[in-house]
């Protein structure tokens, strides 16, 4: 059907994807799996191993730990020293060829220590997709040494994009090929991740490029539902949603749970990507009843000063905004140290800013690292006897909290009325009791009785005080341990999260081994986010190019012109609409910014404007 696999990817850079596009998922499986080995990173060509002693400490530095990292220039595996200096955590490594690299790892040592206490490791992967042929992270994946199952599966459905952001080299026009797996190919990828043990993927995010550029995106969502995915989200810049109200309805009807929408700030300066379109996208999502998570990429000196306003924006639109998930910048490419120091922000830095910008309403102690919730999974697992979905990612990868409110200017983090540590300790002990043979129903009753001790209803938002609504919600999660119980919890709160994806400068192999945000690869592999995107030449670009169309092929097949897929913004029109005014009212005085500055912000970012 297609060209036979060559001995090396150097000899065969791409299959004839036109020959694959009409195959069934089963036929695709047969065809593509054989390429996985060829597409793996090659020792001595793509990377080297330099495992000498880790760099020594210097005056004023205290050892935190040692780990493995990468050379930002040649991807070689290097030992790294993680150390504490002036209250912050840094990483240092030395590449024999490219010299020393020092990077801020975590902006506050006390938060590092507090978060470390919550680390829980997963059960590993019982059905790895690849054998052990190389050291981590050149063996993805998932390989037998990976520690966490997939919590969120990303599937890139296209590399086309209608934006031309100045920093992006990923989209089809720049890449020189179109990666667009067929519907059946996507089905195959979904199946590969779903069949994994001890827990297959149940949540998927369709991403790109811009996934909404695909004419069959609704059908793709439907396929995910057919394949048994319980949570489906679409990652978008929201521009199509702003102009096509029907699209939001169709996505919702097909089974989309959430739209994951880029939102970097509340002004044109901080969010030139979609500042003008977001109000309309929210309006259409609202009409469709489709929830959205706002996703700001946070950069020092750029939008760090707006994290409080972004949260207030989320609260203002909480009828449709389910969460705000901030992503501290991942610095791609080769960036000089001074420039990195200017941009770099880590989780504790954002926590401190959130505290400052919310006037202390959301304090840094209100946030917990992602694996904090593992005791819930372990308790349910002890009750049911079945491996549960658990978030065992590295403690430095993410943090979260929930906020509630009686009025928009008084935010109440969950920690004000729930003793999180008490509840998790209770569940940990209960799981242990069940495991050591105590009757699970007796333990469950005892947990339900004791839970009250850890919830101070008098401090809860008013809506939860009536009839012990909050306690009932927690009971439902523990008793039903199903998705709807969790959904009820989410619909009554604003989720605040952070996910710090790594780059080559702060890369920590310990983190990537615990990663639970994965990508489905077109050859059937499943790869952690921070190998897929941090070493794109070894994973993302290599695989996508391999299974791509040439631009000419794609244009011939679709009758479209790639160069014509460029979004041109009509700022005047967008600003004149009522949704725009309403969206930012009380959050940012966007009308005090001269029109010319709006235009300039958009153009500087790379998005042309109709004038």
């Amino acid at each position, binding site marked *: 059907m297609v060209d036979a696999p060559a001995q090396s990817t150097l000899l065969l850079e791409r299959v004839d994807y036109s020959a694959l596009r009409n195959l069934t998922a089963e036929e695709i499986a047969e065809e593509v799996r054989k390429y996985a080995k060829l597409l793996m990173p090659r020792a001595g060509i793509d990377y080297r191993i330099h495992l000498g002693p*880790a760099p020594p400490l210097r005056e004023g530095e205290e050892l935190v*730990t040692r780990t493995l990292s990468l050379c930002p220039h040649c991807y070689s595996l290097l030992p790294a020293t993680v150390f504490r200096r002036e209250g912050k955590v840094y990483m240092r490594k030395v590449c024999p060829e490219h010299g020393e690299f020092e990077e801020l790892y975590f902006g506050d040592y006390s938060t590092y220590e507090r978060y470390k206490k919550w680390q829980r*490791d997963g059960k590993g992967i019982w059905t790895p997709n690849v054998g*052990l042929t190389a050291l*981590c992270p050149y063996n993805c994946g998932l390989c037998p040494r990976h520690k966490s199952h997939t919590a969120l599966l990303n599937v890139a459905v296209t590399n086309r994009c209608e934006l031309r952001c100045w920093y992006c080299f990923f989209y089809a026009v720049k890449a020189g090929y179109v990666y667009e797996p067929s519907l059946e190919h996507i089905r195959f990828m979904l199946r590969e991740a779903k069949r994994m043990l001890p827990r297959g993927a149940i949540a998927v995010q369709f991403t790109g490029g811009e996934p909404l550029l695909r004419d069959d995106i609704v059908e793709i969502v439907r396929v995910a539902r057919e394949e048994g995915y319980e949570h489906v989200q679409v990652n978008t810049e929201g521009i199509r949603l702003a102009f096509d109200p029907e699209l939001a309805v169709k996505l919702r009807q097909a089974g989309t749970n959430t739209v994951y929408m880029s939102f970097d700030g509340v002004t044109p300066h901080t969010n030139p990507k979609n500042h003008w379109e977001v109000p309309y996208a929210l309006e259409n999502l609202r009409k469709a009843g489709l929830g959205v998570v706002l996703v700001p990429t946070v950069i020092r000196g750029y939008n760090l000063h707006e994290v409080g306003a972004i949260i207030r924006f989320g609260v203002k639109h909480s009828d449709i905004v389910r969460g705000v998930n901030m992503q501290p910048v991942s610095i791609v490419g080769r960036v000089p140290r001074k420039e990195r120091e200017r941009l770099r922000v880590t989780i504790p830095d954002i926590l401190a800013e959130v505290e400052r910008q919310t006037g202390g309403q959301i304090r840094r102690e209100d946030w917990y690292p992602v694996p904090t919730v593992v005791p819930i999974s372990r308790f349910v697992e002890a009750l049911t006897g079945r491996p549960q979905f658990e978030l065992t990612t*590295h403690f430095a990868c993410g943090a979260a909290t929930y906020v509630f409110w009686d009025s928009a200017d008084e935010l109440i983090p969950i920690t004000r009325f729930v003793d999180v540590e008490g509840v998790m300790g209770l569940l940990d002990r209960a799981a242990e009791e069940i495991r050591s043979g105590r009757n699970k129903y007796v333990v469950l009753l005892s947990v339900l009785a004791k839970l009250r001790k850890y919830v101070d209803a008098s401090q809860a938002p008013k809506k939860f005080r009536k009839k012990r609504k909050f306690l009932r919600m927690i009971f439902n999660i523990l008793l039903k341990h199903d998705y709807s119980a969790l959904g009820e919890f989410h619909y009554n709160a604003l989720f605040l999260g952070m996910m710090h994806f790594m780059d080559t400068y702060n890369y920590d192999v310990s983190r990537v*081994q615990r990663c639970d945000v994965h990508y489905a690869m077109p050859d059937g592999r499943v790869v952690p986010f921070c190998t897929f995107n941090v070493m794109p030449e070894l994973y993302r670009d290599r695989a996508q190019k391999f299974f791509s169309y040439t631009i000419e092929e794609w244009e011939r097949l679709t009758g479209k012109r790639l160069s014509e897929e460029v979004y041109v913004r009509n700022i005047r029109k967008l600003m004149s609409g009522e949704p725009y005014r309403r969206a930012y009212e009380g959050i940012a005085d966007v009308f005090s910014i001269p029109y010319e500055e709006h235009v300039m912000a958009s153009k500087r970012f790379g998005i042309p404007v109709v004038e």
Partner: protein
Amino acid sequence: MVKVFSFDLRIEDPAPRAVRARGAVYSPSGGRLVRVEGLQRQFSPEEDALDFDEDFGATIGLTLADVVHSAAWSEALPLTVAVHECAGPCLKLYEIVEGGVKRRLLMVIGGEDGRRYVLSVQGGASPPRGDLQKLAEVVGVDRREVEKLLASGLESP
């Protein structure tokens, strides 16, 4: 060449672990499993890391990346390697203690099918007879020989 790793690891970051592992290699001789003596040397990351991950990555979730964390308190990686020469299929036995819990790993290597068989036995549990039978077949001894080895552990001659 069959490698056996020995170590006493104490890791504090990112999660605390204290693991002790000792192992030995047995090969069939006259229908019995006989211990093979190995040549001890220091762990070399370049030569041994992948084999270490293969033995412990999937079985007890311990990899080179974890070991490096334990080295925070010393200069060299705290692992020793014993290299054994086996002509045919052989059986590797590890006794591992972590958090007061003992676990035995039985690995059969070098069978005709080229596959690697691993059996993990926690505490005093008895593994399924069928699994033991399979290991015994691949290594070419009677099942009771494997049971005997499992019962006496690394004390076996």
